[in-house]
C-alpha cells in the first residue's frame, strides 16, 4: 500500500509539471506587461548580448526597459504563428524574407508607415532589396536590421597537412573541387576537403546556382531556372564536390559546422551571421576566410561581377499590430535601425548593417581574424536577394528532402540522379507558385 502512495505522488508531480510547462509557455510571450517593458524575440543566440546592449542605450534615453529573448528558428515561427492566430505576440521581433509577405497581408504587423513619415526616416539609406522585402501595398511593416553575405571558410591546418595552397579570392569552383579532392585523399579516412548539406542553401548551393547563371526563383517570382542548362551545370558542380566531400549521412547527423570545428572538414561556405561562432571557437587560429569562389562562365580567366554571386538577405525589425505600446515599439525599431545603432551593431560584431557603407566597422570588429571576404564581395561580385515566394515553406523543405535533392545528394556518383532531381525540384517550385494564386 505504501507503494501506491508513491505512485500517486509521482503522478501528481507529473501533472503539476505539465501545468507548470503550459503556464510557463503562455506567460513568456505576453505583449508588454504592466510595467511597460518591451519584449523582443529573436532566434539567434549569438546576437542576444549585442542587441541587448544596443537596447539598453535606448532605455538610457528615458525609454522603457527592453527584454531580449531567444527562441530557436523552428520554434520561433511556430510560436509567432500561434501568437498571430491567438493574439499573444512579443512587442518587437525579427521578420524574415521567407515569412514576411504572409504576415504583412494579414495585419499581424504594426504598420510603420506613419511613424516613418512623422519622424522623417529616410528609407533610401537602406539596401533597397531588403527594404522591399518588408513593404506591401505601399506600406512599410519593418525596417532593415542588417544584411549578410557568404564567404568560404577554411582550416589552414588541414591544408598544410595535405600540402595544398590556401584558397584565394581568384578561386573558381573548379579550383575548390581540385583542392577538396586532394585534401580528402591525403588526410585521414574520416576527414574530407569539403562539406555541404542540402539544407545549407542560402550559405551553400544557392550561390553556385546563381554564379552559373541560373536562379532558384526569378525576380518576378513566377518561375525557376533550376532545370535550365545553367542550373544543371551548377548542380553538376555540387555533385562533383560531393563525390570528394563528407557523405550526406554524416553531415545530416553532425552538421557542417561541428564537423569543421572538429577538424574533420577543411572547407565550408558560411554566412556572415556565423562569424562569431568561429571567431570564439577553440581552434580559431587555424581558421581563415576567403571570398566565395566564382564560375568562369565566359572562360576569360578573370572574375566578372556577375560570375561571383553571393546570396544576401536582411532581417527586419517589426512590431506586433496589437502591441500595448505601439509608440514605444515604433520608436525602438527606429532607434535600432538608425545609423548610430547600426554602426554600433557592426562594431560589436553582431552583424553587418542594413545601411551600406558601414562595412569597415564590421570588418574591424574581429581582432585577429580577417573577415574582409564578406565585405570585398560586395565590390567584386553581385549580391542576389535570397530567393523566396509568398509561401516558400511549401517548396523549401521538400526541395531539400526525399522529393527533391536528397537522393542525388546521397549518391553523388550518379550524375543522372542529380539531373532528375533538378527536374523534380523545378516541378515542386512551379507547383507551389501555381498554388499561391
Amino acid at each position, binding site marked *: 500500500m505504501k507503494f501506491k502512495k508513491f505512485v500517486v505522488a509521482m503522478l501528481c508531480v507529473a501533472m503539476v509539471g505539465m501545468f507548470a510547462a503550459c503556464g510557463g509557455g503562455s506567460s513568456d510571450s505576453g505583449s508588454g506587461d504592466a510595467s511597460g517593458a518591451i519584449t523582443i524575440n529573436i532566434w539567434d543566440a549569438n546576437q542576444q548580448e549585442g542587441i541587448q546592449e544596443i537596447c539598453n542605450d535606448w532605455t538610457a534615453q528615458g525609454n522603457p526597459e527592453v527584454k531580449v529573448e531567444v527562441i530557436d528558428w523552428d520554434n520561433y515561427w511556430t510560436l509567432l*504563428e500561434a501568437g498571430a492566430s491567438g493574439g499573444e505576440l512579443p512587442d518587437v521581433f525579427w521578420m524574415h524574407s521567407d515569412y514576411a509577405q504572409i504576415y504583412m497581408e494579414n495585419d499581424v504587423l504594426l504598420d510603420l508607415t506613419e511613424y516613418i513619415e512623422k519622424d522623417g526616416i529616410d528609407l533610401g539609406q537602406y539596401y533597397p532589396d531588403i527594404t522591399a522585402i518588408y513593404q506591401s501595398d505601399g506600406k512599410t511593416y519593418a525596417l532593415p536590421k542588417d544584411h549578410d553575405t557568404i564567404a568560404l571558410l577554411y582550416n589552414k591546418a588541414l591544408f598544410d597537412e595535405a600540402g595544398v595552397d590556401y584558397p584565394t579570392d581568384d578561386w573558381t569552383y573548379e579550383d575548390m573541387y581540385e583542392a577538396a579532392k586532394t585534401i580528402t585523399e591525403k588526410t585521414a579516412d574520416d576527414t574530407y576537403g569539403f562539406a555541404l548539406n542540402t539544407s545549407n542553401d542560402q550559405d551553400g548551393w544557392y550561390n553556385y546556382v546563381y554564379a552559373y547563371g541560373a536562379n532558384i526563383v526569378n525576380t518576378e517570382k513566377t518561375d525557376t531556372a533550376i532545370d535550365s542548362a545553367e542550373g544543371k551545370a551548377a548542380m553538376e558542380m555540387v555533385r562533383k564536390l560531393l563525390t570528394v566531400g563528407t557523405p550526406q549521412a*554524416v553531415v545530416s*547527423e*553532425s552538421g557542417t559546422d561541428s564537423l569543421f570545428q572538429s577538424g574533420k572538414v577543411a572547407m565550408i561556405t558560411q554566412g556572415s551571421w556565423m562569424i562569431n561562432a568561429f571567431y570564439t571557437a577553440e581552434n580559431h587560429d587555424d581558421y581563415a576566410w576567403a571570398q566565395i569562389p566564382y564560375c568562369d562562365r565566359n572562360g576569360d580567366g578573370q572574375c566578372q561581377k556577375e560570375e561571383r554571386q553571393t546570396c544576401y538577405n536582411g532581417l527586419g525589425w517589426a512590431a506586433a499590430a496589437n502591441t500595448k505600446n505601439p509608440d514605444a515599439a515604433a520608436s525602438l525599431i527606429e532607434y535600432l535601425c538608425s545609423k548610430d545603432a547600426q554602426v554600433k551593431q557592426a562594431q560589436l560584431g553582431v552583424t553587418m548593417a542594413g545601411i551600406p557603407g558601414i562595412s569597415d566597422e564590421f570588418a574591424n570588429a574581429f581582432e585577429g581574424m580577417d573577415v574582409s571576404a564578406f565585405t570585398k564581395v560586395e565590390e567584386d561580385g553581385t549580391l542576389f536577394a535570397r530567393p523566396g515566394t509568398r509561401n516558400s515553406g511549401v517548396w523549401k523543405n521538400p526541395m531539400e528532402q526525399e522529393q527533391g535533392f536528397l537522393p542525388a545528394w546521397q549518391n553523388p556518383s550518379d550524375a543522372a540522379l542529380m539531373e532528375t532531381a533538378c527536374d523534380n525540384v523545378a516541378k515542386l517550385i512551379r507547383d507551389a507558385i501555381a498554388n499561391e494564386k
Partner: protein
Amino acid sequence: MKEKRPMTAKQKNEAIWAYAFVAPTIIGLIVLNFYPAIDTVWQSFCKTGDFGKGNTFVGLENYSKAFASSEVLQSILNTIKYAIIEVPFGVIIALILAVFLNRKLKGTSFFRTVFFLPMVCAPAAVAMVWKWLYNQQFGLFNNVLHANIGWISDPKIAWISVGIIGVWSIIGYNMVLFISGLQEIPGDYYEAAEIDGATGIRQFFDITVPLLSPTTFFIVQTRIIGALTIFDLMFMVMDRTNQALSKVQSTVYVFYEYSFNQGNKGYGAAIVMILVVFIMIVTVIMQRAEKRFVFYN
C-alpha cells in the same frame, strides 16, 4: 419502477455544489480539448487561409490527396513499426523488472527510482542525449564498438534505433504500474503453489501473468495509443535532411510538417483525422480482445 420525484432543497444545493466542483474540469475540457477537436474535423474539409482566417470548404479533397500520398501512407507504416517495437518490448522488460523489484530486498527503492528516472526527464533532453550517443562520427556507441554504423541515418536500422529510445523512456512508467498490479495479487497463491512444488518460473506464468492481465491490458492499450501518436523522438533525433527520415517519420510528424512548416492546416488536419480513425479501430479491436484474454477475479 420508482417515479422521479422533484429534488428537495438539500439535494438541489448538493447538485449545485457538485456542478461547481466539476465545472473547472468540464470548462477546461471544452475549451482545450473538445473545441479544438471539433475545429480540427471542420478544418480537414477546408482549404485553410493564413492564421486561421478565410477557410473555404473543399469537401473530401484533403482526404483524397492524403490517401494518394505515398508519404502519408509510409508514415502510417512507420508509426506502426515504431509501435511494434515500443509496446511489446516496453511491456515485457517492464514486467520482468517489476517482478524482480517487487521482492523484499535491500536497495529495491533505489532501483525503482533509477528505472523511473527517464519518465521524469524532459523528452527533448532524452532525445538530445540519445542523438549524441548514436552519432556516427562522435557517438559513444560507435566509439565503444569501434564501428562506423549510421544508427540514425541508415534507413534500414534507424527505425529500430528510434524504437529503442522509446522503450528506454517508457519501461520505468510501465514498471511502476506493474508493481502496483503485483501488490494486488494475494500472497496465498504463491504459498499454495510453493507447497505444491511449483518452480518460480511456473509460478510466474500460472499465477502472476493471468492475475496481472488487467494491468497488462491497461498498459498495452494506453501504450499503443501513445506509440501511434509519437512525434517528439523523431522530431528531436533526426535532422530534416537525414536520409532515413522518410522511413522513420511518424504520422504526427508529417502532420506537423504540413500544418506548421508549410502552413497547410487543412491537409494537416485531414492527416491527423486519418490517424484518429485508425486509433479508434485499434481501440475497438483491443476492447473485443479484452474479453478473451483478460482475467478478472
